[in-house]
């Protein structure tokens, strides 16, 4: 047991917790004023729903004793056998209970990211059902494959330092699948839908940046050099991507505030899987390229007339995909002896493994989410009535409004 490690991972856990409501603010600023409360509430409530699911079965499914490399058994359900004693398979110097809590925050934020795909039209009850089913059938298995002892992608040698594949690719690709099932918003593509509060979006983005120090820096699970490196490259990639998005938007028109904030988030997404394996100079490249990729995928999404409302796929899905592949290209044993060397060091194998893990997680997330969404749509229905949508989800779903008074 190392008490410095305990302090750092406790703080990191709290930092990652803050990211979930921050996602709500980030998304909330971009929707119309009548859906602001609903959007923030859906993002933030995953803290409520998934925290409970995680304690009851989630942690055991994701990290419990392995079954066939595919899923954890239920031996740790209800946190049985998860106590103060460290589990050397995951983190040898902190209580097993703390590792569980740190991972809980990752499980919480991932479905909160998907909220951006279906805002302004989903039924609140369907959102709760979807979030639960998605955690059970998509997040927990993928987390097991990539991170758990005995997980098949981990054994293959896939590197994902803090969740590029487990968090961002699953969320982004699931957002795409879901947007193909849920109906578009009324008048989508016909009427300008104006963001109600861009400062809120900026606040959310920069709180995400702050929280991400725990997300990546804490993934070393110790107060050590690798954590310091992750902390540094996280900041550099976010900075580089924010500047890069600003430049792109300036070339088209004007340097956009939402663009700078979105760029920062995309840079953070892309550095996530690589943060324990690359240095700061590489992080500049990873961040800059991430913005270019996501920017043009947003354009593609618009051309395809997809109502994946807040571009979770373009930002998290594609940012995470680039990050996972970039890990295969740039990873360096000089940065982290426990990692591996990537393509530029002549190691083709790691890149191939990253490619396989990306492809598998893309396919799995897409198919399972599509099935869950279809079943929900056919039974309870995913979307509200047009009338409820017109009034706005704040009043129709919650009986409250964001901006009261005159």
């Amino acid at each position, binding site marked *: 047991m190392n008490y410095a490690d305990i302090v750092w991972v406790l703080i990191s856990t709290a930092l990652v917790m803050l990211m979930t409501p921050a996602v709500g603010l980030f998304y909330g600023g971009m929707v119309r004023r009548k859906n602001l409360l609903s959007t923030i509430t859906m993002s933030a409530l995953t803290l409520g729903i998934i925290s409970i699911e995680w304690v009851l079965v989630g942690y055991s499914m994701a990290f419990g004793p392995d079954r066939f490399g595919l899923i954890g058994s239920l031996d740790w359900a209800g946190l049985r056998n998860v106590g103060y004693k460290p589990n050397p398979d995951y983190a040898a110097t902190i209580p097993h209970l703390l590792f569980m809590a740190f991972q809980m925050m990752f499980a919480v934020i991932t479905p909160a990211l998907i909220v951006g795909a279906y805002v302004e039209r989903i039924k609140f009850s369907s959102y709760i059902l979807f979030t639960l089913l998605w955690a059970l059938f998509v997040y927990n298995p993928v987390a097991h494959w990539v991170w758990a002892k005995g997980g098949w992608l981990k054994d293959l040698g896939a590197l994902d330092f803090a969740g590029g594949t487990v968090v961002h690719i699953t969320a982004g690709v699931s957002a795409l699948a879901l947007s193909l099932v849920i109906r578009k918003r009324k*008048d989508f593509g*016909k*009427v300008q839908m104006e963001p109600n509060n861009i400062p809120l979006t900026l606040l959310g983005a920069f709180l995400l940046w702050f929280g991400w120090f725990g997300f990546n820096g804490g993934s070393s699970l110790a107060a050590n050099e690798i954590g310091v490196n992750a902390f540094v490259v996280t900041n550099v990639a976010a900075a580089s991507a924010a500047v890069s998005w600003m430049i792109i938007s300036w070339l088209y028109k004007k340097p956009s505030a939402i663009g700078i904030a979105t760029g920062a988030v995309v840079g953070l997404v892309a550095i996530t899987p690589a943060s324990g394996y690359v240095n700061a100079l590489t992080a500049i490249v990873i961040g800059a390229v991430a913005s270019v990729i996501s920017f043009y995928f947003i354009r593609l999404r618009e051309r395809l007339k997809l109502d994946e409302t807040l571009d979770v796929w373009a930002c998290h899905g594609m940012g995470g995909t680039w990050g996972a592949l970039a890990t295969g290209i740039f990873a360096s044993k000089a940065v982290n002896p426990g990692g591996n060397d990537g393509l530029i060091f002549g190691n083709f194998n790691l890149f191939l493994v990253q490619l396989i893990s990306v492809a598998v997680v893309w396919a799995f997330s897409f198919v399972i989410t599509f099935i869950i969404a279809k079943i929900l749509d056919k039974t309870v229905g995913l979307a509200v009535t047009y009338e409820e949508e*017109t009034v706005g989800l704040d*009043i129709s779903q*919650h*009986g*409250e409004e964001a901006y*009261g008074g005159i």
Partner: protein
Amino acid sequence: MKKIEAIIREEKLNDLKECLEKEGIYGMTVMRVKGRGIQRGITLQWRAGSYTVDLLPKVLVMMVVSDEQFEKVIDIILDCCSTGNPGDGKIFVSEVSEVIRISSKERNVKI
């Protein structure tokens, strides 16, 4: 020339803009307003109770149109913004004695 002040449902604004555009009518001033008529408001939640909102959000569209266009514009507003339920709003009409364009300092501008 007449001034039309139409108080309509928020959600009808886009429809109305589209219908007027089809007729080549673009000029309008739009305000977010709150108000009440015969309809007595709605009940919203507050932590562990509820409160009634008796001033409901509406949109006020102000337009000044020529006498020739007047009837057509009124018809469009009625077609577009009526749901048949209380809360659809009202239209107030008044005569306009003069329009002045600030940019050119022109008096008696014809709409």
